[in-house]
């Protein structure tokens, strides 16, 4: 175990490298990569690594990057890629395919606003494009979490009860380019944590065809299997947390990260780095005697509904902070979790930090002041944080 001062981009790439090497005794590691701000350093770092029985293909587009990952994974190798924003949008068609093939590909996403007009700053709208495709989704709040989540994502994605692709998201620049201390385990520990990749339906000797035509009944059967496997991933993740703790001696973060939530009458719910700012706000307001707590939704797919219901029970006021906007509706997170609260609770949606606005403590405090004055829930509010 060593401690290194690295960016989250490098942390993700290092996680993938260690995971890749861990599969050297099986079918190896193969990755397709293509640069895009702010994920470029992740793929650059990966290109610079020596990976035994590993190959990193420098392809012509994100579409091809996912294509290579699909080919590699369908041939039984461990596979990883990284992208952002329009890169993810360009890759999307193959993301659909990767999920439907049930291939355990892991992807790091540095969240960035979709363009044009061009904007390179953080917004969750890019990875949320994958919301309904059958990808496991995690939103991280610090560099250590990015590293840990990449390792856990491989284990979760490759679990025979789950078997589907996963993405680990980090806010562009806010995390992707920020250097912080990250505990890096040695290869031997990672080998113990990550068993070799087994893709049971890989292209092998038998003459089966992947991705064929299906009639509606077959498609529904496959979707049902996929949906159930996704729901089962919550429990599998809990097992992975235990295994992670046993091997690395520390616990990887929960699907829902709660901060002073148990006795709170007001909750701030968010994803990604806004969550850590919210925790500082909680500290500040608790000093003033206010019973405020923070909920950070780390696992977004599958949605950890039971955990959220548990924390929401008895809470009267909930501010949902979305760093995204589903035009014509409101924040995506708000839309998804408003049904989990008590019927008489006010669940107010705020779209804050959209398209890269810098969300600071005073912004969140202002939102809470607004929430306290609400008599009833109103339409989600777009908050400018310039």
């Amino acid at each position: 175990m060593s401690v290194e001062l690295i960016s989250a981009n490098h942390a993700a790439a290092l996680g993938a490298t260690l995971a890749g090497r861990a599969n050297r005794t099986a079918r190896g590691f193969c990755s397709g990569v293509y640069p895009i701000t702010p994920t470029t350093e992740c793929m650059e770092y990966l290109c610079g690594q020596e990976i035994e029985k590993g190959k990193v293909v420098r392809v012509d587009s994100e579409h091809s990057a996912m294509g290579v990952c699909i080919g590699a994974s369908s041939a039984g190798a461990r596979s990883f890629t990284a992208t952002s924003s329009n890169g993810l949008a360009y890759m999307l068609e193959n993301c659909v395919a990767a999920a439907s093939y049930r291939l355990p590909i892991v992807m790091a996403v540095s969240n960035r606003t979709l363009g044009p007009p061009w904007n390179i700053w953080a917004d969750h709208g890019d990875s949320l494009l994958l919301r309904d495709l059958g990808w496991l989704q995690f939103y991280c709040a610090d560099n250590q979490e990015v590293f840990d989540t990449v390792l856990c994502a491989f284990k979760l994605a490759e679990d025979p009860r789950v078997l589907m692709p996963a993405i680990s998201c980090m806010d562009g620049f806010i995390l992707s380019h920020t250097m912080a201390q990250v505990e890096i385990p040695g290869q031997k520990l990672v080998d113990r944590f990550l068993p070799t990749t087994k893709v049971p339906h890989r292209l092998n000797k038998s003459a089966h065809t992947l991705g064929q035509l299906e009639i509606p009944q077959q498609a529904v059967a496959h979707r049902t299997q996929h949906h159930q496997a996704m729901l089962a991933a919550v429990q599998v993740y809990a097992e992975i947390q235990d295994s992670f703790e046993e091997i690395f001696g520390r616990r990887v973060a929960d699907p829902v990260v709660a901060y002073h939530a148990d006795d709170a009458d007001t909750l701030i719910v968010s994803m990604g780095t806004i969550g850590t700012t919210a925790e500082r706000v909680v500290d500040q307001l608790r000093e003033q005697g206010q019973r405020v707590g923070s909920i950070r939704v780390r696992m977004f797919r599958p949605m950890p509904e039971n955990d959220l219901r548990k924390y929401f029970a008895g809470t009267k006021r909930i501010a949902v902070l979305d760093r995204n906007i589903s035009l014509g509706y409101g924040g995506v997170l708000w839309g998804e979790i408003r049904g989990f609260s008590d019927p008489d609770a006010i669940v107010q949606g705020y779209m804050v930090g959209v398209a890269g606005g810098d969300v600071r403590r005073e912004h969140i405090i202002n939102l809470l002041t607004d929430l306290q004055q609400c008599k009833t829930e109103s339409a989600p509010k777009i908050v400018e944080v310039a």
Partner: protein
Amino acid sequence: MNEPALHGMAQTKKDRSAPVLRPGNTNCGGCGMSNLLQMLSRAAEDSDIKIVIPACCAAITTGVFPESSISVPTILTTFAAGASVATGVASVAQLNNEETRVICLAGDGGTYDIGMGTLSAAAERNEDILYICYDNEIYGNTGGQRSSATPTGASTTTTLGGKSEVKKDIMGIMAAHHIPYAASISLAHADDTLRKLRFALNVKGFRFLHVLAPCPTGWKSEPAVSIELVRLAVRSGLFPIFEVFDGDHYTINIEPDFSSEALLMYLSLQRRFRKSGVTEEAIRPNIERYWHQLRAMSGRIMPAIRNIKAD
């Protein structure tokens, strides 16, 4: 013309024990791709092959899950991802020291049009892939729309009066990538086709094969004359049969007679050329221009002598 006999492409002792394309598949009668897969069955008699098929007729050929008309491990990919998925499969085979030949089987839409960028990139990286384009000169799967492989004068559902532009020169494009091997294949010349398939299967690096694949449904021709149509396309010079090694060494394999008879017969046997009324005079300059360039590239100013050893 000295053409080898077709000597029956039915299942024989020389073929793979299980044909690549199984009996009972749903391909149209007279489909060029069916013929190609029959020949591949013989050429890849004892090779370990895996097939990558982007969206195209061949993807439909495999049939409905869980049965498959293709008897080797196969993955169907998105339209533009044939060459990239094949890259992944081939890379992993290479990492594991396997002798697997990864074949990407794509139509002209997935090759000339939507998959062009992916194909070009895989060729530039010289991935260890055998890329076979079966070119039926339309989007056959969607009912026959114009592609950049559609020839001048051909009616499609999106060029009702006949296409006015010239067919894209795919062999020129692939040769310009200086890949180890690129060749055009005539389904009417079985010996030449088998030789090229066998050679291409065993070359390392990126190999490209261009196959003119008649589509009776889209070409509005009789299924029984498909092979004859290919023969006429070759005889007339419309579909040159040649191979390119490393992008610079050109060899012309079959010398056309450039006869008006062959060209007119080729046009008249397909109703797709009827509406535009495209004439020999309109097409001839294109043929001549292409052959002029081909002769220059192959270093021959005289007609090539056929020098293919009979199988």
